[in-house]
């Protein structure tokens, strides 16, 4: 944290190269181990499968930066999709209105998360754990546990754009990544979020009211989950109330692989997106290698832990110390 802005800019670049290097290595490995991995259709297919996780990871990155956590995104994601489905199918709402309602509901869940945890100063871990159950229960109740088949216009939205091969959802997700990154790194709001994550008390003492900012962050996470739910509905043409279980953990994993700190104050949406890519390519490649589901989980877990270990080293020690720690030498004085 004490490093000058110039050296932090350099270390940021090193992060990007590191993440891109991991992606390149994985592509190389899976490309040699399986057929058709380096084909355009496979790239498009992988791209079209990640918009949901990209949005969840954006929201999660914001929340982690302010030192919070949002465990409810998987449930809120499912709730938004189901609300859209039920509104369109059972209440016969026009599809655009139904989709708006779905996203709105996501935002409302986010607001409740933020408001309750800020108003009564309850750790977001606990509040969002409650929301995880509430949203899941509400969603199952609304849908009566039935998969809602929507079809029609929604199915068309989930199709790749002719001649381009990728879906509108992917393009929108990329747009969101860019907007979110600009908000984080170029606006005062973004700067405050990092400051809150680093030292909330200092922010408060300098006369800034952190509460509305933090609530806004949870609203952003809720809205992102809402849009992600919508994308899922586009892709599937139907809303399944059973989706999204454990998605919050994948979103956290993507952010962490991307170098976002679980204790707040550090993170980047673009790097989280690279984290999503790493996890998606890993999952896809392991399926194509026909490894078992259980083995896939082990590998994914190992990659997450490795990413965190590397990141911890990068944060705390210099390269020389990192090298020395392996050579069992006494670390050089800082």
């Amino acid at each position: 944290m004490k490093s000058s802005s110039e050296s932090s800019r350099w270390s940021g670049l090193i992060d990007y190269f590191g993440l891109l290097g991991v992606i390149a290595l994985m592509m190389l490995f899976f490309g040699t181990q399986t057929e058709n991995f380096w084909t355009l259709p496979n790239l498009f297919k992988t791209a079209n499968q990640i918009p949901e996780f990209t949005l969840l990871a954006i929201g999660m990155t914001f929340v982690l930066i302010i030192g919070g956590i949002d465990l409810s995104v998987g449930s809120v994601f499912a709730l938004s999709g189901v609300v859209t489905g039920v509104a369109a199918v059972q209440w016969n709402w026009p599809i655009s209105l139904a989709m708006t309602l779905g996203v709105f509901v996501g935002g409302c869940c986010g607001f409740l998360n933020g408001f309750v945890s800020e108003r009564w100063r309850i750790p977001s871990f606990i509040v969002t754990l409650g929301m995880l159950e509430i949203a899941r229960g509400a969603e199952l109740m609304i849908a009566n546990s039935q998969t809602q088949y929507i079809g029609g216009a929604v199915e068309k939205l989930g199709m790749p754009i002719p001649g381009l091969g990728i879906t509108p959802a992917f393009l929108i997700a990329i747009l969101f990544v860019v907007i979110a990154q600009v908000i984080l790194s170029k606006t005062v709001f973004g700067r405050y979020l990092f400051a809150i994550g680093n030292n909330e008390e200092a922010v408060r003492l300098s006369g800034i009211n952190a509460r509305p900012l933090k609530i806004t962050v949870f609203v952003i996470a809720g809205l992102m989950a809402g849009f992600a739910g919508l994308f899922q509905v586009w892709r599937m043409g139907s809303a399944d109330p059973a989706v999204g279980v454990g998605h919050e953990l994948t979103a956290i994993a993507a952010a962490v692989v991307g170098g976002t700190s679980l204790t707040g104050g550090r993170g980047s949406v673009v790097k989280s997106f690279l984290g999503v890519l790493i996890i998606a390519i890993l999952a896809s490649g392991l399926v194509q290698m026909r490894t078992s589901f259980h083995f896939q989980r082990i590998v994914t877990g190992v990659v997450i832990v490795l990413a965190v270990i590397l990141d911890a080293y990068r944060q705390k020690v210099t390269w020389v110390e990192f090298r020395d720690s392996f050579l069992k030498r006494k670390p050089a004085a800082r």
Partner: protein
Amino acid sequence: MCAQSKTIPGQSLFKWVFLLILFSFMMTGCTDGPDTSDSTSDEPKKPRIALVMKSLANEFFSTMAEGARTHQAAHADQYELLVDGIKDERDVSRQVQLIEEMMVQQVDAIVIAPADSKSLVTACRRAQEQGIVVINIDNKLDAEVLTQQKISIPFVGPDNKAGAKEVGDYLAGKLAEGDEVALLEGIPTAYNAQQRKAGFMESIEAAGLNLVSSQSAQWEMDRANQVAGDIMTQQPGLKAFFCSNDSMALGTLAAVRSADKLGQVQIVGFDNINAVQEAIKAGNILATADQHGDQLAVFGIEYALEILESGGTPDDKETPVDLVTQESLAASQAAE
């Protein structure tokens, strides 16, 4: 939002919320009370049957529970029904807890869809030792463990293997010998997943199809979508997917659609959920199996009532599985 007003109103609101929650607990306690006393004071004591389900988040099981409730409402003079389920399909320990709760409540019969074929046997044995009639539905308890524990629990349910074979044969009829096909399995440890896989495998072997990949998609739509996409990448010439349930068939359909292979890659499922009926009518999914989910728990309950009356030691009982295709849906629609 200002800092001065943070504690006092917050605390009082907190207190109110707390009181409200306490009050609502008392209310539910009150409504629970008369219910049970009612049943004991009734002149001829009605048997109390507990239905212990798997995940009520799953359409299949919620439909099953709904069917049981409807049946009970129509036969309210014959028995009482307690329905409970678990939130996660794999939450075995919670299901054991539920059985223990039912034992404490001294129900006369337990109809259970076990989350696991093996680990639920001991709890069922304890219930049986307490004189409770135990009926096994949906997912069959492991025969080996049952003999080890020296008990017999009747299974009432469909032959998943025969059902999958029927669906598989229908699909195989649309393909040529040597065509490349893939199988999406359920959770590998579940008995019905194993049975469906075995049924599909029989039809694949009988028709001489070339099975290029068989992977578990954990019964999930999202997971199936990803896995199906990857299988198609590996096998561009793939002709069909055998999906062990309908959620996975829907996820596969989305993958096939976005690979622009509708019509080239056939899909079959299992369970006959509403969303899949739409896809079958549209010609995007070829077939599924109807095991009459709304009736499965009812079959178990009726069997339990029968045993409570006669007191005999019962055998297994098979329930029907029907093939659902575009033609059969059109025929049933015309009949209505």
